[in-house]
Structures are given as C-alpha cells and as structure tokens.
C-alpha cells in the first residue's frame, strides 16, 4: 500500500527538472501515525503541516539535527550557513527559528488569545496538563516565531522517551477534539514546543533566514535577492507562488527556481486548477 500517485508525480517532476532516478537514495514506507490524520490538521487540512513536529520519531536516530523548510519558500543563500549556526553537541537549544517582525504577533496572538478570544481556554488547558506549573512562567507578550523555517535538535525531541512529542500530540488532540484553542496549523504547536522544551524558549535565528511576505509594512525593503530565505506566507487563493499573479513584483524572485518546475507541470499535464 503506497501513496503511489504522489510519488509518481514527484519522481516525474524531479526527473523533468534534472534530478533523475540516479539521485534517489532511499524510499522508506512508514506506518500511519496518530498525527497523520486529517482530524488533527483540522484547520489547515494538510497533515504534512504537522510532520515537522514529529521529525524526531520519523528520522533515523543517527540524524541529530534537521532543517525543516516549508514548500512556499526559496533559499537564496548557501544553506550550509544556516546549518552551521547551531551545533547539537553540548547545546541547550531545541528549536531555532526567526522571530515574527510584526509587533502584534506575540505568543498571546499565536496561541489563539486574541483571534479566538480564548486566552482563558489556553490557560485552563495549561493548568490541566501541567498542574505544578504556573501560566505566568510563559510571557505571552513575547514575540512568536514563524514555523516555516525551523532548525530542530532531534536529540532533544527524542530525550526522555520522546516526551516532547507526546506533549505535541496531547495539545493537537486537545485543539481538534476538545475545544478550539487556536488556528494556524502547526505554528502554535511549534511555539509551544519551544516553550515547554528544556530551554524554555526558541533560539533566535537572523531574520534573513525567513523573510515573510506580508509580515510587515516594509516588505518592499526586505523582499530582495540578498535575503537568505523568502517565504510567501500570505493566505489566499492566488497567494502561493505557483498560483501567483504574474503581474506582481514579489513573484520575480521565485521564477528563476519555479518557472522550470511549472514548465514541467504543464508538460506532465497535471491539473490546471
């Protein structure tokens, strides 16, 4: 039993853009996991969104560190620079990411506080899950991070029988099955993961490694070819670069990487809508 349709499409597209079968190392098939269901991905309907939180379980134990990249980004600098910023040996970080630039995107907002007017719901769930801890330990006015580019310390995620991943599963289920705490897919969970990790916070990466389209009013200054990573975060039907309005300036930096892909897309006669 495989998801052969997706695999075949990806293989054909990779072959078409010059990454042939000879570069294919290994294909592994995994049994389904609880977070792999659409139920947990209730608000974004795509379970891939949550894979990033469980990479400690999914990847071999020999892999201690991983960079997660969303698929609506392009990397404009040598990824080695980002990779070498943090080492897993002797370090205390669990999650490293870029802080959101908009001042109102704090933890309270990210954890559903203002959007759903339910800070009390989160606080009550927090007390339920961690009776010995105080909610005041979490400074909700701190700036949250965008989870589209993550550097993850997998050794930490696997420590103590992977308790952090168990926590993610608990909060995922709480949000999807008990009460709506927040929206935004895996972003609130990733922020929560950093908060409950031994470090108690995330390691801040330089902003160049995740410049968001739509995060600030200064997009035009920040959105250029000198940045490490550009990220199309605006939600909407035509907001993602492969569905973008070609008249807009922002698409120009995606086209050198994406245009050959879209030519292959048409060549393979994949769905137009």
């Amino acid at each position: 039993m495989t998801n052969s349709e997706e695999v075949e499409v990806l293989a054909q597209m990779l072959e078409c853009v010059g990454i042939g079968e000879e570069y294919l190392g290994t294909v592994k098939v995994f049994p389904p996991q609880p977070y792999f269901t659409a139920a947990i991905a209730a608000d974004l309907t795509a379970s891939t969104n949550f894979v990033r939180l469980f990479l400690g379980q999914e990847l071999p134990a020999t892999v201690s560190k991983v960079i997660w990249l969303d698929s609506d980004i392009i990397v404009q600098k040598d990824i080695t620079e980002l990779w070498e910023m943090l080492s897993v040996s002797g370090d205390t970080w669990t999650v490293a990411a870029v802080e959101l630039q908009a001042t109102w995107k704090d933890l309270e907002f990210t954890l559903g506080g203002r959007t759903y007017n339910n800070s009390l719901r989160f606080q009550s769930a927090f007390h339920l899950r961690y009776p010995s801890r105080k909610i005041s330990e979490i400074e909700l006015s701190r700036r949250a991070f965008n989870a589209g580019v993550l550097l993850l310390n997998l050794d930490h995620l696997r420590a103590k029988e992977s308790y952090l991943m168990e926590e993610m599963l608990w909060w995922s289920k709480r949000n999807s099955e008990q009460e709506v705490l927040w929206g935004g897919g895996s972003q609130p969970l990733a922020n929560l993961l950093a908060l409950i990790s031994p470090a108690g916070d995330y390691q801040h990466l330089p902003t160049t490694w995740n410049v968001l389209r739509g995060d600030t009013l200064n997009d035009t200054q920040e959105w250029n070819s000198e940045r490490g990573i550009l990220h199309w975060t605006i939600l909407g039907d035509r907001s993602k670069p492969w569905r973008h309005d070609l008249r807009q300036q922002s698409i120009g930096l995606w086209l050198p990487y994406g245009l050959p892909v879209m030519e292959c897309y048409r060549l393979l006669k994949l769905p137009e809508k």
Partner: protein
Amino acid sequence: MVDSGRVLLSLLAVTLLCTAVRWKDLLPSNNGTNEIIHIALGATMGVIPGMVATMRSVLLNTHSQGELCHILCFLLPLPQNVHHTHTHTPPTPSHNSKSRPKLIFLRKLPSCISSLRDQFRRG
C-alpha cells in the same frame, strides 16, 4: 639520462597532483567534520510544484563543494475531505487516507548540484 630523469620527475609530480586531487575529493569539506546536512520538506499533491522549486533553490545556491546533503521529502496524500482531479496518472484505488503511509526520499546531492547548475546556466 638527465632527460629521462626529468620526465620521470614530471610524471611523478603529475601522479602526486592527481592523487592529491582525488584525496581532496574524498576529504570532507564541512570544516573537517564530515557532517551531513539534513533538510526535510513536506507536501501533498497540490504543493509538489512549490516543494520542487524549494529543492531547486537549495541545490542551486549551496556552493560548498563536496558537501554531503540529504533532502528528505515527506509526501502525504490529501485528507479524505479534499478532492482533486489528476489527469496524468490514474488515482490510487480507494485507499483510506488515514491508513496510507508516507514516504521519505533520501538524496545525495553533490553531483546533482553541478548537473542542476549546468542546466540553470543554460537557462
């Protein structure tokens, strides 16, 4: 006799040079740590074009020669309540999306990078 000695020395020098180049190829370039960079991406069917473009951008801009880099692609089927049409490959027959497994591709990149760069230069 002197000439043949020079020829011999030249040949020896060339051999040593070639050996050094081969050793250089084999030696890790990542600050001597031989660390493999692991990058994970994930996509459902509709997002595959974005994922491939992201992958190309990583490959085309990673200039560390000899760097070992694995890209891990998580491919997941669409949730059951999302419908899509696909005209190229016939849909997989009636698998429950909750029971369908995901796949990982591991890829080694160095030669891939140069191949892609050539393609990129050709436009």
